[in-house]
Structure formats: structure tokens, C-alpha cells
């Protein structure tokens, strides 16, 4: 058991969280009709896919920074 007074939230893994914050805010990546997927223009399917990106990164960061013990 770690001494509670010495705990911190610091971890280099947290820098990964920047990816799902920055990527969805770059319109040049998604502001286009082709290629479409199941009839969805890129604008719509790619931004929905960013949800998967967000979930994957936060889940990864949560798992690797989880406190043990």
C-alpha cells in the first residue's frame, strides 16, 4: 500500500489523451463527402468513428494508470 500522502496523478501515459481532444477539432480531416461508407458521407461516418477513438484512448489510459494494491 502506497503512503496516501505521496500519491500523485502524474503519468506520461496521460499525454495520449491529447489525441482524442485535438483530432476531432481539425475540420480538414472530415469536412468532405467522399469517400462515403454505407451511404454516409465522410463528414458523418468519420466523426462517429472518433467516438471509437475517444473510447479506445481513455480506456487504454485508464487501464495502464490504474492503481495497483
Amino acid at each position, binding site marked *: 500500500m502506497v503512503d*496516501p500522502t505521496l*500519491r500523485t496523478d502524474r503519468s506520461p501515459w496521460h499525454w495520449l489523451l491529447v*489525441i*482524442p481532444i485535438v483530432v476531432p477539432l481539425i*475540420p480538414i480531416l472530415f469536412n468532405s463527402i467522399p469517400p462515403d461508407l454505407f451511404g454516409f458521407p465522410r463528414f458523418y461516418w468519420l466523426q462517429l468513428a472518433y467516438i471509437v477513438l475517444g473510447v479506445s484512448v481513455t480506456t487504454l489510459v*485508464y487501464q495502464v494508470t490504474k492503481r495497483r494494491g
Partner: protein
Amino acid sequence: MWRDHLTEIIIFTVLFAGVSAMGFVASRWRRPQTMAHLDEWGLGGRNFGSWVTWFLIGGDLYTAYTFVAVPALIFGAGAMGFFAVPYTVIIYPMVFLVLIRLWSVSHKHGLVTPADFVRARFGSPTLALIVAITGIVATMPYIALQLVGIEAVLKTMGVTGTSTLARHAPIIIAFAILAAYTYQSGLRAPALIAFVKDGLIYVVILVAIFWLPAKLGGWGSIFGAAEAKFAASPSPSDGLLLNANNQLQYVSLALGSALALFLYPHSVTGVLASRNRDVLKRNMSALPAYSLLLGLLALLGYAAVAAKVKPLPGATPGSVDTNTIVPQLFDGQFPDWFAGVAFAAIGIGALVPAAIMSIAAANLFTRNIYREYLRKDATPAQEAKVSKIASLVVKVGALACIILLDPQFSIDLQLIGGVIILQTLPSVALGLFTRWFHRGALIAGWIAGMGFGMWMLYQVANPVTGKAHFAGSAFPLSELGFDTKMTVYAGLIAVVVNLVVAALATVVLRAAKIADGRDATTTADYFVDSDTPRGSVHA
């Protein structure tokens, strides 16, 4: 006529009544030794695990109004309305590290509201009062918007009368029931009801996104119909894609809204009700499931275009109420019984956030006005009592907003609400990471950000609706002298102004050696977990 919608009305009423019964029973759920304590009434015992927290925060953030208004925005403007998707994608990684710190320091010091934190961190009752009032003012129109959501459904079912009272009677009844069980069960009521709400919403959306394209010729032809509509419309800002002038608005609105969301007092209530840090972290990765739902629901706005849905008339002659798009779509495309279930999902979806919001606003009043200024030695039981009554007052106020004012006015107020709640960012969110700012500088920054924000919103006109002021949040950069047609989200600019003023004023106040407040927290307080004994300011 309401007689044509009898099946829908019966199903809606039965589900609504069932959920209300749950609300009353909720006071026995995870029963505490006493409900006469703000931690129990206002925070559900601060002991919710992963699942309850997921439903509670999800039910709190993704409201009936969102589910009605976002598709309406897509229906009217196209791509711009999709901002809700990036907004709810970026928010969880953004607050991942912030909320656990807030949870820890609140656990350690027995804090209940964001203003409580500001009080402890900066030692300034004035700054805490400003944060509390900002929170209450921003929350009131948000509650009123939930009523707009229910009203859109009732209107579609033909439950409208000619007199003001007859038109609003169903909402008044619904809110009286809501007020009664929130009074009795506190945060346990929305937490329990959220399970039903989300179950219904998930079923309805999943059916809708498979059924509607099958009926309307597939997603390809749905997008095709939308494209044809926007090609024919004279407005320069609509379309299936963003144009050169509204990309900055799209991005800044997504970012600004994300920054604002967890500053709202009701989001903080949901966060502090959870059991430990791990529950919160796990939820930050699981909550985006709702964003997927919201994204798919948003696209029903295009399905409504393809299905040639006509919005019902608005409150003033000649106007249309685009919030009725989704209810009208369900009414026209589905069997009556399923439309009834969908309407109940929206109606119940309004109750959960409205309850949490009124609890959050009541807690702010109790902790940061009543206990700070009116009765310093209030016991936990007195606090709980005051909060219960304040929650009733808040709901009556929201109801009055809807009945006495044009609902469009509540929507405008909500827009302003987003800009003003952002002005608490330096003291609440940055305060969790740094004690650098001077308490006086934070007050100066708040005043500057608020003033500039209101000025910007005042400048926003909409020639299509004929509104000269407060017609949206898209501030034209040309107003600041830039030679461009681009617009930017007013809230984001306002918070930048706020931060610059707060930083400059801090330097000045420190140089002048003006007394600062005392920080009641220590660095270690931001990392404690549930294995550290829970603190109480009453101890």
C-alpha cells in the same frame, strides 16, 4: 386533435406514471440511516458505483432537450448541428484528470458544490457567491428547456388547449409530480429513473436507425434528400458540409461547449455522488456510448427531411417550432404504440436532468448563500431541509419561464447560460490545478469575461428570423475589425478575455501586495481516494 393520438397518449401516461411511482419508492433504495443530511438527499449518500454513476451522469448530460434540439438543428442547418458529436467526444479525455481531482478534494473536505470548492481554495466568500449565483442563473433556463422537450411531445400528440392554462396543464401536472418525488427522495429519484429512461431511449433509437432507412430508401437517399433541400435553400450557411466561414464556429462551439459542460453545477452533483476515483475514470471511457446514440439521433434530422416532415407552428403566429421535428417523425413513420414509447422516452428523459439540475441549484443556494450568509451554524439536517424547499422554488421558477415567456426565450437564455457558466472556468477548473491566481483577479476576470460575452451575444443578429440581438452564439469576427466572414463561438472568446484579465490582475495585485485568501486545501488533498476518511466541514 388529441383523439387521433389516443394510443400514444395512453402509453405515454402509463409509462410516465410508472416512472413517477419509482421516483417515490427511490427514497427506500440504498436506504440511509437518515435522509436529513445534504450528503444523503443532495448526493445520494456519495456512494454510487460504476453502473449507477453511468446512468446518472449520462441521464444528466444527454437531456431530452438535446435529443429534440440537435436533430432539429441538423434538420434546419445541416452539418453545423453535428457539432454535438465532436463536443461529446473531446469532453471525456478533457475532464479525465480534472474530475478525479475535484472528487478527491470534495471527499476530503466534505464539499457539495463547485462554489464550495472555490470557497475552500481561494478563501473568498465573495468569489464563492459569484460562482454560486452564476451556477444558479445558468441552470434555471436549462431546466426550462427540459420542459420545452416535453412540450414538443405533447404538442405532437395534440394535447394543446386554447387558453394559456389549458395548454400548460399537462406540464404543470408533470412538474408537480416531479417536484414531489424529488422533495422526498432527493438524488436517489433521478438515479433510479435514469435506468428506465436510458433503456427506453436505447430501444427507440436502435429501432429508429434501422427502421427509418429501410422505409426511406437507405442512408444514401436520406442524405440525398437533405442535399437537395440545402441546394434549394437561400441560406449561405447550411449544407451537408461546413463551408469556409463556419468551420471555426463549428470547432470553437464544440470546444467551448465541452469546457462548459462539467462546470455546470448539475454535472458536478453527478460526479460527487460517485463512490471513488476509479468509478469516475471508468465512466470517462464508458460514457461516450451515449455520444454514439446522440450522433445517430442527430441524423434523424435528415431522415425527417427525407420523410418530408413539417414542423408544427410555434408560439407566435407565423413561426415554426422545429423542436417538434423528431416527435412528428415518430408520429408519422411508426405505429402508434411505438410512437407512444418514443414520446415517453423523451418525456421521462426530461425528468431525470430536470431533477438533478434543481437539486444542484438548491445545493448551491443552501451551501453558498444560506449557510454562508444567513445561518452560519446550520446543522446538516437544516441544510437538507433548506435544499428540499429551494428545489421546489427552482422548479416553480423554471415552470414560470415556460408559461409566462415565449419558449424561444428560454432557448436564448440557455445560450447565454453556456457563455456565463464558462466564466467560472478559471476559478473552478484551473483552481483544481493551480493556486496561482489572486482571488481579486478572479473576480475581475469574471466581470470582464461576463461583460465582453454579453456584448458579443448582443451583437449577434439573424436576418432570416429578423432578430437583431441574441440570435445565436456565432460572433462575426468582422465586429472586431477582422476582414472576414468567419464566426467564432462567443463563449470561447469571453473566457479568453476572462483569463487574460485574471492573469494581468494577479500580477498587479501580487506586486501591490494586496492580501490574498487562505487556501484550506493541501496538495495531497487532490489525490485522496475512498480509503481516506470522508471529511465534513461540520466536523
